[in-house]
Structure formats: C-alpha cells, structure tokens
C-alpha cells in the first residue's frame, strides 16, 4: 500500500467549457513525512495523557488507521455523467 500519487479531476459542463486537473500528490509526500515527524511527539504526548481516561489506545491507533485510509485511496474512481456534455471524473492513482 502507498499513498495516492496522482489525483485526476476532469469536469466538462454543458456549455462545452471544462477543465482537467492532474494533481501530483506525490509532491506532497515529503511534506507529509515532515508533518508526521513533527506531529508524532505531540500526538503521542496527548495519547499518554489520555491514557488515564482510558482513551490513550484510541489516540495511539488513530494516526495509523487514518494513514491506512489514505493509502487505500489509489484505485478509487468516481465518474458521473449527467449528459454526454456534462461530466465529472475523479480518479486517484
């Protein structure tokens, strides 16, 4: 499993105007990695304090589960076509 590398959005409206976006999400990976390194100590400190209230385990697991969710996005496709000239496409790959 890996995070989504590219997000493609394509929108075409009835007046024939439309646009396509190719978003290179892989460029955000280093930024996300830095954020994780910075946020991890704070997050786990909070988890440590919440342990007393029985909520610590949830706080420990949550970032991993959230990461798993993001890493499951590749392959997700949503194509909606109201008419041949009115289309929206969202693809994660």
């Amino acid at each position: 499993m890996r995070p989504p590398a590219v997000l493609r959005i394509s929108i075409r409206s009835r007046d024939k105007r439309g646009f396509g976006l190719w978003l290179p999400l892989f460029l955000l990976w280093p930024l996300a990695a830095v954020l994780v390194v910075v946020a991890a100590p704070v997050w786990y400190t909070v988890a440590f304090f919440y342990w007393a209230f029985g909520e610590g385990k949830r706080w420990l697991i949550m970032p991993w589960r959230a990461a798993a969710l993001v890493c499951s996005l590749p392959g997700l496709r949503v194509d909606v076509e109201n008419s041949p000239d009115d289309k929206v496409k969202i693809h994660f790959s």
Partner: protein
Amino acid sequence: MSDDRKRILNMVREGRITVEEAGELLSAVGGDTAGSETGVPHEAVKKVKYLRVLVEDKERGANVNIRVPMALLRAGIKLGAILPDHAREKVDEALKDKGFNIDLSKADPETIEQLITSLSELTVDIDTREEGKAAKVRIFCE
C-alpha cells in the same frame, strides 16, 4: 451466494441484527462452503479488489460509474470503529437514516473481514423499464 448468506445480509440491511451477530451467523453457515474460514472460496477472496456501482439512465443519458477499492472500505470501517463516541454516534445516526443499522464500535477486524469477503459474492442488478423509462443499477465486486 447461498440463501443463508443472503438472508443474513438482508437482516443486517434491515437492522434486525448487528454486524457482530451477522459475523457469528456467517461463520456458522460458512461450514457448508469449502475454501476458507469465512466460507468464501479462496479464489473469490483473492480476485475481488473493487466494489463497483454502475447506474445507467438511458432516458436522461446519465451514467454513474463508481469504483471503490475494498481496502478503502476496510480502512474506513476500521477508522470508524475507533472514532470518539460523540463522532461515532453521528456516523451511526447518518447510516441509520440511510437504512444501515450498524454499530461501528462493535466492528472488530474479524467481523469486518467476514463482511467484506461476503460482499465479494454480492451482485445486485436492478433493471427498470416503466413508461419508456429505462434505468439500470448494477452493484457488484470485481
């Protein structure tokens, strides 16, 4: 899909039993199907990667094509199971409004796996032809 499995999944959809109870029932009826612990043949478990929803409305020329990775379903349910109580209650309420009476807090990994592997056998075909209208809905796994 066997009649027993269909009946259990219908009971979950109608909110008559919880996800946990459905898991136990599916395990119980799984014995009649050779292949895996969940009762789904190994070949089906390996092949299924996506849940597909196709809607075709020929009258309006509208089409919807959604492909959801099974891994995303799995990860979403697992994340939902550890949400704070107040947030999970809202999610449960929203699901209930849509006809899914599911308690996410009781969704342990084994139950989730059983439900998702059971989904791999799911195929729903709805074909409506009324007064010139032609709409088709297909939900299946691939």
